[in-house]
């Protein structure tokens, strides 16, 4: 069996960039001290963390610095999910008179399941729907945001279909009602230019492993002046806003990854967009009865969501796996849940299409040759499964 891997699932996770690993290496071995220590061996690491913090702030376009030159709007966490939990819990705590959250139907489970939990705890959650292309119902959102609303949380970009949402506009709507605005920017970071200095966004979550840093490190950006209550309570780390000894090596890695993303962004966007468009054109030319999902006018350059009608996604993925091709599926069967993806359902995709939906997502490390290989392999995989399908008619 061929075991050369073509990794086209970069919205799930990414490889650690070699430069990132090299930056981390000393912190895994000789520089193992605790940054809170008073002696140089540990204490000097605190300065390295501050440099990484500035790199993250630069990627986000957050130019504010305190009197020590620190980018204190950046809080390091353990992952995107922790950042989301911290943001939502904090927003509710600091505005105890407001007990409502407004969000969308297409959020990541980190937000959706947390909102469900908050509902059980007695908060009100309003979930705004999307149209057939996954575009947010803005008028419903405007109606939902009111003087009861503590927080509006809307993802910057969707992980499954790649849609980019109008976060600035929604932040303004939230602020008009006196509510805070948070965005889960896990998929957007490094793929969409950001300028927090000119933005109305109050809080923003990112995750290291989606942009070539390691797993286990994330960031919560909290705009200067926005009240914040810590989610993880412990030591004085992160200026008392996130307890727990710093994950030094990963924080250094994330700093490096953000630097690479910022410096290479224009080039990377052009590269992955070329690959994505080549894939979509190639598939559309060779395979009948497909649909390309999402908002073609506003989506991530690296993401393609394609439905292959009348067949099921897990079967497609396992056959692609035989060729070493890694992608993901919105099908029920792959996740252990029994329904297809909540995003595709929110868009009203027919079940025949939703179950057979694949997501390809590229990174700067993918090549044209890899895309061509996918285009070469996919038609026979699809036709093999369609021949087995009771719904497929030639």
């Amino acid at each position: 069996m061929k075991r050369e891997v073509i990794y086209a699932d970069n919205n799930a996770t990414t490889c650690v960039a070699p430069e990132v690993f090299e930056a981390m290496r000393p912190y895994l071995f000789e520089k193992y001290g605790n940054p809170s220590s008073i002696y140089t061996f540990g204490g000097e690491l605190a300065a390295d963390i501050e440099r990484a913090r500035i790199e993250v702030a630069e990627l986000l376009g957050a130019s504010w610095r305190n009197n020590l030159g620190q980018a204190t709007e950046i809080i390091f966490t353990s992952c995107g999910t922790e950042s989301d939990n911290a943001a939502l819990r904090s927003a509710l705590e600091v505005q105890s008179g407001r007990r409502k959250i407004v969000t969308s139907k297409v959020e990541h489970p980190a937000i959706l399941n947390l909102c469900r939990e908050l509902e059980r705890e007695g908060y009100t959650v309003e979930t705004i729907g999307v149209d057939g292309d996954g575009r947010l119902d803005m008028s419903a959102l405007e109606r939902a945001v009111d003087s009861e609303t503590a927080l509006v949380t809307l993802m910057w970009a969707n992980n499954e279909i790649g849609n980019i949402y109008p976060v600035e506009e929604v932040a303004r709507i939230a602020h008009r009602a006196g509510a805070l605005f948070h965005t889960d920017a896990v998929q957007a970071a490094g793929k969409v230019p950001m300028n927090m200095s000119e933005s109305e966004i109050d809080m923003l979550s990112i995750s290291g492993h989606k942009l070539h840093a390691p797993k286990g490190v994330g960031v919560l950006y909290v705009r200067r002046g926005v009240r914040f209550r810590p989610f993880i309570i412990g030591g004085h780390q992160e200026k008392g806003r996130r307890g727990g000894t710093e994950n030094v090596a990963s924080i250094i890695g994330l700093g490096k990854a953000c630097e690479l993303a910022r410096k290479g962004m224009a080039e990377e966007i052009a590269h992955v967009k070329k690959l994505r468009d080549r894939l979509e054109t190639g598939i559309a030319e060779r395979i009948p009865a497909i649909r390309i999902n999402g908002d073609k006018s506003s989506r991530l350059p690296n993401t393609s969501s394609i439905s292959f009608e009348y067949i099921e996604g897990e079967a497609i993925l396992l056959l692609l796996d035989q060729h070493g091709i890694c992608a993901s599926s919105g099908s029920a069967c792959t996740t252990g849940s029994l329904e297809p993806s909540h995003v595709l359902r929110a868009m009203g995709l027919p079940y025949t299409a939703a179950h057979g939906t694949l997501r390809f997502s590229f990174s700067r490390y993918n090549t044209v040759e890899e895309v061509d290989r996918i285009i070469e392999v996919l038609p026979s995989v699809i036709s093999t499964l369609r021949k087995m399908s009771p719904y497929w008619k030639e």
Partner: protein
Amino acid sequence: MWDYNEKVMDHFLHPRNIGEVENADGVGEVGNVSCGDALKLSFKLDKDGKISEAKFKTFGCASAIASSSALTELLIGKTLEEAEKITNKDIVAELGELPEEKLHCSVMGMEALQAAIADYRGEKVADGEDEHEGRIVCKCFGVTDVKLRKVIRENNIKTLQEVTNYCKAGGACSSCLDDIQKILDEELKVKHDESSKQPDNGFATWPLVQKVVKVQEVVDREIVPLLAKDGGGMELVDIVGSTVRVRLQGHCSGCPSAGVTIKHLVEDKLREYVSPDIMVESV
């Protein structure tokens, strides 16, 4: 990622008997696309009444395809009577194992087989009846209480999670889980009550007290009044294994028709009301 064994992967990567049998004798279609799987099974019988051809078309994941493929292999060469006995457990056994969450794929295989046999016999599709009979409990997958009870009984299900694994019910929005739990509790209670009753064919294995109480009850209620009409009586002496020893009294003792009386009356009554394997002896 699912942990499929080699047999499952082999059936998935090299499925046997894909397609539709021409001029099929029986065709069964089950599942629906909203659930994420569907199976169309067709077969043909030869002169000797054995299944000579069986083919499938499946919309579904790897385990749905593997279950369908394994089912066709199980079918070929079998008579309809033999085929009828195939259950989802046989399909799982043929594949070695399936992940728990995928057991419903094997159930779909069994349902398609039942539907195809029913089609051959010109009967209404048994499972189609189930689908429409009763009250829909799980709205996401259209599962009725009738179907739930059937699945629970046939697979000896004890937990909510198993219910979902076997028929998907409750696996989506979760709003019916309380309802399913109630049905499950009822079924488990019925089962418990049944098992605390003694099985009909194991009289010899009953505890002695149970044997005596049951037999005495029937003797008093059904037998003594009948014998009393002839001025006779009867008492229970002993029970050994399945043998009930009785002593006839009054006019019955020494009556030439005693043997016949015992055989026909006492034994019949005890067999009818207590257990069919009871033998009666007069002492």
